[in-house]
C-alpha cells in the first residue's frame, strides 16, 4: 500500500517543491508546507520530520531525511530524499535536479499508464475464460448424477453423488480463487494516477 501511495504522490511533491523553491522558499519551509497535508503518505512523513525537529529529538534534518530513505519503498521517493540529503550535506543545485527528476518521473508515469492499459487488455478475456468455462464444465459435472440416473446408469459406474458434489464445490472455489488472482493484477500494477 505504501509503495502505491508513494508512487501516486511523488510527482506532485516534486512539482510543488519545484514551484515553492523557485519562488524563494527554503528547503525546510518547503518540507513544512508539504507536511501540512494534501500529499498522502509523503505529507505524513514530512510532518513527522518537522515534528521531530520541533521536539528537539532530531540529530539534524539530514539524518532524519536519511532515516526516511530506509523507510521509502518507491524508487522515485528514494531518489527525491537522496537529492534532499545531498543538498543538505553538500549544497548541491536542488532546483535543477528536481526539474530533471520531475521530467523523468513524468515520462516513467506515462510509460507505466500505457503499459497498464496494455496489460489489462488481456484481463477481461482471461477472467471471462476462467469465470465462464469453469462453471459451465462444473455445472455439467454436477448434473451428471441426475442425468445418468435410471437406465443410463447401467452403462457407466459413477462415483457417489456426494463425491461429485465435493468435486464441483472444490472446482467452484478454485474458479473464484483464479478470478481473484487475475483481478489482483489490476491492483498490483496500478500506476497510481
Amino acid at each position, binding site marked *: 500500500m505504501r509503495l502505491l501511495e508513494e508512487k501516486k504522490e511523488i510527482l506532485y511533491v516534486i*512539482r510543488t517543491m519545484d514551484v*515553492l523553491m523557485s*519562488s524563494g522558499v527554503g528547503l525546510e519551509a518547503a518540507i513544512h508546507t508539504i507536511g501540512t497535508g494534501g500529499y498522502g503518505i509523503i505529507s505524513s512523513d514530512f510532518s513527522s520530520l518537522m515534528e521531530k525537529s520541533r521536539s528537539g529529538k532530531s540529530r539534524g534534518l539530514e539524518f532524519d531525511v536519511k532515516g526516511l530513505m530506509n523507510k521509502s519503498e518507491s524508487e522515485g521517493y528514494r531518489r527525491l530524499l537522496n537529492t534532499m540529503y545531498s543538498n543538505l550535506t553538500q549544497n548541491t543545485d536542488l532546483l535543477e535536479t528536481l526539474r530533471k527528476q520531475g521530467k523523468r518521473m513524468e515520462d516513467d508515469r506515462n510509460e507505466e499508464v500505457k503499459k497498464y492499459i496494455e496489460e489489462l487488455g488481456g484481463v477481461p478475456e482471461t477472467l471471462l475464460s476462467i469465470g465462464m468455462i469453469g462453471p459451465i464444465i462444473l455445472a*455439467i459435472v454436477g*448434473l451428471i448424477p441426475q442425468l445418468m440416473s435410471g437406465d443410463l446408469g447401467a452403462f457407466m459406474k459413477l462415483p457417489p453423488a456426494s463425491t461429485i458434489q465435493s468435486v464441483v464445490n472444490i472446482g467452484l472455489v478454485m474458479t473464484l480463487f483464479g478470478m481473484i488472482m487475475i483481478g489482483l493484477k*489490476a491492483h498490483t500494477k496500478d500506476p497510481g*494516477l
Partner: protein
Amino acid sequence: MLFDILEAFNDQMLLLLLIVFGIAFGAGGIPPMIERKRRRSIENQLPGLLESLSDAVGAGRGIQEAMLDQGRNTPGILGKLLTDTLESSHSSSFDAAMSSFAAKTRSAQVQRVTVLIDTAVEQDAPLQGILSDLSMDYERLNDLMNRRETELKARGILIIIFVCIGLPVLIAFIVGLFAPANKGYQISDFNQTFSLFFAAASAIAASVSGRMLGRMKDFLWWLPFWMSVSMGLYLGAVKIIGG
C-alpha cells in the same frame, strides 16, 4: 406482482437480503458517481483556466483581476464557482477567497494548485511561468486519466455484463433444459451451490472492474446489487425454464 416475484424466492433468504441491501446500497452509490462527474468536469477545465491566467498575468494584469475575468469567461462549474467566490469575498482577503474556492471544488488538483498560487503570490515569484507550467502538468495528467477511463471502461462493463448477467443465465438454461425440476430432478442443492457461486463471482467481477478504473471504493456500493442480480437471474431463469 412485485410481491409475487419475491414470494417465488421465499426459500432463498440470502437473495431476499441481498435484494434489500442492493437497493439501499445502490442508492448510496449514486452520490459518489455524481460527485465524481462534477469533480472530473472541474479538473478537466483547470488546465485551460491556468493557461488563460498565465496569459493574462503575462499581459500585466493582477492575479485577482485576471481570475475574476477568466472566471466570468470560463463556462461550466469551475468558472461559476470561481466567480461566485471572488465576488462574494469583498470583505475578506484574497487568500481566504482562494481557500474557500478550493474547498468548494472538493478537488485535490484544484486545492494543490491553489496552495501553490498562494505561495507564489506570497513569495512574489514569477506567476506567468508557474501558471503555464502548472497548466501543462495538469493537462498531461488529465489526458492520462481520461485515456485510462475511456480505454478501460468498456472492458470493465464487459466483465460485469458477462459474469453478473451472461453466465448465470447461460448456466440456468443448461440446468433448466437438461434437468428441469418439474420432471422430478432433484437440483435444489445444486441451485443453492451455484447461486452462491454467482453471488461471489459477481462481487469479484465488480471489484476487479472498479479497480481497473481506479475507483474500487465507488464500486463497492454496487456489490450487493450485482450479487442479487446474478443470484436472482440464475434462480429466476431456472424456475422459468425448468419449472
